[in-house]
């Protein structure tokens, strides 16, 4: 009974969080939990700890640094891939029994404080950190290592333009001289961030999205890309791609020019192979045997529902989350190889970004050959976008309508952005059955 109630509270708070946005929700919970926190302390109730930590993270600015004391921390940040890569590195370094990690999405200060507060028994942490929260988190709880993967346009109404995040990361490293940085220098922003930093493990896993890095971060001239070989350089100053310790091509990971490993993962798509390569590099640098790394990466299942497959209303549905143009482009490239029909969902809540203009940065052309149904609170935005992109589609107002629009037994792919994906997950967990 108790469990059931807690479950429904969880769903209700999820709904609130989805509606008002994760960060605002965290602020709201902080003030609401104030009284509960002190009460739980006073009465020594264990169950109040989490709430208390939540409260502390805001009301007591030292909570994060206190909970992080004595722990070795690895932070993972990026516009895309940070949740999955955090899960991969966690698996490679021994799994949640040995490693404290934060749940998907809880990647801002309060969520990280909460995760660390529950980990008195574990000394190693692999923590996903929101791009804009990384400098403040790193100043309160200095990391031993930071993994920086990529920066591209995302929620520009809320998060500032890409360049200013790169500048803030650079300043962060100037104040954290000792931290070891694993840097994907395939992305010019990341190369710029780590320039001049002492302890860098530079690697190249590729970067498909170059539209936010067309201007030199040093002198503001044009940056030229040679996408074939993944090279780039400024046309007027010395800025260009630095040399790397590790290079990943296809599924081959090279170290110092020699083939180190064939990277495999149970998660789909070239972008997840790239994430797995990052986890392999981090694991190898920590002297984890390559065969153990491989077995960790090939036994992962869905991460926070992403990539999971459900049996639903007599159909099979595999769910993908994509939040910004670079993320969508990766998923589209992967799904272009199949002809599975699609459900595409778009919301524009605070956590998604209020502005839907980014839909026009995505080339939906590869979906022109299949059945597409659009859903979500902003289904007409995506419908209009697909119309102009020459992709035929139908509009559904409910998930049931969308799913049953396809014949029974059909395998469907679903792509949704942040809060739309959460809504679909809730529907699938309630009405469907997880099969993998």
């Amino acid at each position: 009974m108790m469990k059931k109630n807690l479950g429904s509270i969880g769903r209700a708070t999820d709904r609130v969080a989805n509606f008002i946005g994760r960060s605002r929700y965290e602020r709201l919970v902080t003030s609401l939990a104030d009284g509960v926190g002190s009460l739980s302390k006073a009465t020594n109730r264990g169950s109040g700890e989490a709430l208390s930590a939540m409260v502390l993270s805001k009301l007591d600015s030292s909570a994060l640094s206190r909970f992080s004391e004595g722990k070795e921390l690895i932070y993972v940040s990026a516009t895309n891939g940070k949740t999955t890569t955090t899960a991969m590195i966690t698996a490679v370094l021994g799994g949640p029994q040995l490693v404290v990690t934060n749940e998907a999405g809880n990647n801002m200060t309060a969520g990280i404080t909460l995760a660390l507060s529950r980990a008195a028994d574990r000394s190693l942490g692999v923590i996903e950190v929101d791009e804009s929260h990384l400098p403040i988190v790193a100043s309160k709880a200095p990391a031993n290592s930071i993994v920086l993967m990529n920066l591209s346009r995302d929620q520009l109404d809320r998060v500032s333009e890409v360049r200013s995040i790169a500048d803030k990361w650079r300043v962060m490293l100037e104040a954290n001289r000792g931290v070891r940085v694993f840097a994907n220098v395939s992305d010019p922003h990341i190369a710029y961030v780590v320039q001049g930093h002492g302890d860098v493990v530079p690697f190249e896993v590729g970067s498909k999205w170059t539209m936010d890095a067309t201007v030199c971060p040093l002198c503001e001239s044009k940056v030229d890309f040679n996408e074939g070989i993944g090279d780039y350089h400024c046309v007027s100053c010395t800025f260009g791609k630095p040399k790397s310790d590790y290079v990943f091509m296809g599924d081959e990971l090279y170290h110092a020019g020699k083939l180190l490993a064939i990277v495999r993962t149970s998660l789909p798509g070239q972008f997840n192979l790239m994430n797995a390569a990052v986890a392999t590099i981090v694991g190898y640098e920590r002297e984890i045997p390559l065969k153990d790394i491989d077995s960790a990466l090939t036994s992962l299942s869905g991460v926070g529902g992403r990539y999971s497959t459900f049996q639903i209303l007599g159909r099979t549905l595999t769910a993908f989350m994509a939040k910004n143009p670079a993320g969508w482009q990766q998923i589209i490239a992967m799904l272009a190889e199949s002809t599975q029909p699609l459900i595409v969902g778009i919301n524009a809540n605070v956590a998604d970004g209020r502005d839907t203009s980014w839909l026009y940065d995505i080339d939906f052309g590869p979906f022109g050959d299949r059945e597409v149904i659009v859903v979500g609170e902003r289904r007409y935005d995506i419908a209009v976008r697909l119309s102009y992109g020459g992709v035929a589609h139908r509009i559904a107002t409910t998930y049931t309508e969308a799913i049953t629009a396809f014949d029974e037994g059909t395998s469907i792919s679903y792509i949704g952005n942040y809060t739309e994906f959460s809504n679909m997950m809730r529907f699938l967990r309630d009405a469907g059955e997880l099969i993998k």
Partner: protein
Amino acid sequence: MKIVLLFPDLLGTYGDSGNGEILFRRALARGFEATYQRVFYGDPIPRDGNLFVIGGGEDGPMQLARDALHKDGFLGDLASTDHQILAVCAGLQILGERFVTSAAPSSPGLGLIPVVTERIAANKRIVGEVAVEADLSLDLPILTGYENHGGESRLLSGSPLGRVVSGIGNSYATKVDGFLSGRIVATYMHGPLLARNPHLADLIIRRVAPKATNSFTPLEVDREVEGLRSEIISNRALSISRRLGLR
């Protein structure tokens, strides 16, 4: 009819290439022999273009685009030609007399429109849904869009695109958006401006082909656009009341 999107690699931060694509698709649907060319930085600007679309971007790319357009000189001859320009956000700013970047408090623009842009006090940004009642001579339904800019623009002369009924527009003080002349439509409503406002897209196409007799009945996509416009209201993303007749 040749539609040219200028520098999508520099000025395309907010889905701006959508405007070029939409003009092209609608022109084709209206039976025009339309072509669409995306001109990247460093490529020559085609002299036979009829309609030029310029989008928004960050400070550095914006200055590069200004320099390239200045050096090319083509758009500067606009007064003596019959081209049309649609300029959005940073595009509006660089067509003006002066604009501002983090590196330069006053940077010369192309001087095609009598607009001066200055940094908003305390580095604030104007961000959110905006709705504009277009200049009455255009006879358009309410325009809606999304604005996100750190500069305030002032018209030294001439007319704005319209009066702001929700949101901010050019500046906090003036309650107007953009600039309008016989050859230029400039606005802060970025990205899906023409996705949300197909009537404006059609008006621009008519301006490029004033002698055309093609009838402009609503297209199939326009039913979805109606859904989009009402969706914005029901989602409360836009703090405009239904009283404005925005459906």
